[in-house]
């Protein structure tokens, strides 16, 4: 298995106005190369939540899309910190540490990581004060 496509996108801290842009671009790329709408939608939701997390909680970061010759789709969302102190809590639906500003905009439902986990076929997360890395894989479901 080898990677036949790779692209990295930047996400800036507090850039609420552009939240969803990377997700939209990735979804378009996937549809263009013929990935099913069901898988494209799941990837798009995961990317959107990862973008929002970087904008609200992190000091920005990058999202990389990789497609392998066997059709596997991999997303790596890597931010610049400050890290998630308790990953289990962060994975609990409804748990949020979002700011008042974020909440007023309708963010901070505490559904970000749970939505990502539900939509990905493989979900791996690592976090330290230096940053959080999400490694996700997607494939067609029966």
């Amino acid at each position, binding site marked *: 298995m080898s990677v036949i496509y790779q692209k990295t996108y930047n996400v800036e801290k507090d850039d*609420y*106005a552009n*939240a*969803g*842009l990377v*997700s*939209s671009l990735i*979804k378009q790329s996937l549809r263009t190369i013929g990935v099913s709408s069901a898988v494209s*939608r799941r990837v*798009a*939701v995961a990317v*959107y*939540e990862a973008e*929002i997390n970087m904008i609200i909680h992190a000091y920005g970061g990058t999202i990389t899309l990789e497609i392998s010759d066997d059709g596997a789709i991999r997303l790596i969302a890597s931010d610049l910190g400050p890290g998630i102190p308790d990953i289990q809590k962060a994975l609990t639906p409804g748990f949020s540490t979002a700011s008042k500003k974020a909440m007023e*905009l*309708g*963010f*901070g*439902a*505490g*559904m*970000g990581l*749970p*939505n990502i986990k*539900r939509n990905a076929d493989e979900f791996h997360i690592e976090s330290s004060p230096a940053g959080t890395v999400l490694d996700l894989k997607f494939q067609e479901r029966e």
Partner: protein
Amino acid sequence: MKVSEMIEKTGFKTVVPGEDREVNGVYCGDLLSWVMGNGQPEQAWITVQSHLNVIAVAVLREFSCIVLAENAEFPEEVIERAKNEGLTLLYSDLPVYETAVRLFKAGV
């Protein structure tokens, strides 16, 4: 039902006339991740959130249109983004519940 027929039956005011998509059902919600996690393609989305990110959510979730309830207003930048995306934006002067009821009575 198409969005155009839905507008005719409900009388909601058109802010941006987008693509005339199919409407199958309604989703109500203002917490964006909740909407992202639970909304379905072709639904009309009723919300009181009017900032730029609602356009991103609606496009990614493939909603048919956004109905902004309770007399809220979209800022100009949001209207421009919706135009670029071909997304229909509507105003309802009713509260969220009554807005949903009107859609239900219209057969959505």
